């Protein structure tokens, strides 16, 4: 169990499934990675954090 509402990779609809925004992020990650299920390496995490930062800036 690693994230709230997530047990062994399944999100349970009765607890806390991920949000529509999070679904969009995961969908996009799947698309750009060609469904290769990349692990969170340092370089990729840095890119993701940059992308989240860009999203936060756009909101301002």
């Amino acid at each position, binding site marked *: 169990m690693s994230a709230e509402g997530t047990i062994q990779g399944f999100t349970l609809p009765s607890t806390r499934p991920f949000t529509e925004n999070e679904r969009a992020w995961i969908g996009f990650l799947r698309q750009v990675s*060609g469904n290769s299920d990349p692990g969170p390496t340092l370089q990729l995490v840095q890119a993701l954090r940059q992308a989240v930062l860009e*999203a936060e800036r756009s909101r301002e």
Partner: protein
Amino acid sequence: MAKRPHSETGLAKFLTRRVLELRPTKSQIRIATEAGFVNPNMLAMIKNGATKLPLDRVSWLAKALESDPKLLFKLALEQAGDETTARAVAEIFGTVVTRNEVAWLEEIRDASGHSDPSLTARSRIALRGLLGK
């Protein structure tokens, strides 16, 4: 020419890529044996899209491919094209996400301070730059 109706599915492409990546350490025949295929040609047929991956082989094949079974299960469901089954799985279990995707979600939540950021055009560009397409 042989029919390959499933050659463009995500599963066939994923399988092709993993077999290639594992080639230095593991042959395709060994993968097929580890996955429990009585006839090793079955794996070749799934890889080239001639046939679909039976759901009862997902767990074993994922182990043989050293991959996340949830990713393979998701791809197998998509390949099966059975919308009723896919809908039932989604309703009962929620959306299937892999271990790596859970890690990504945790990173997104942490980086945004749990503000649930939307995916903007600029963030798409930032991600696409590194992940490739």
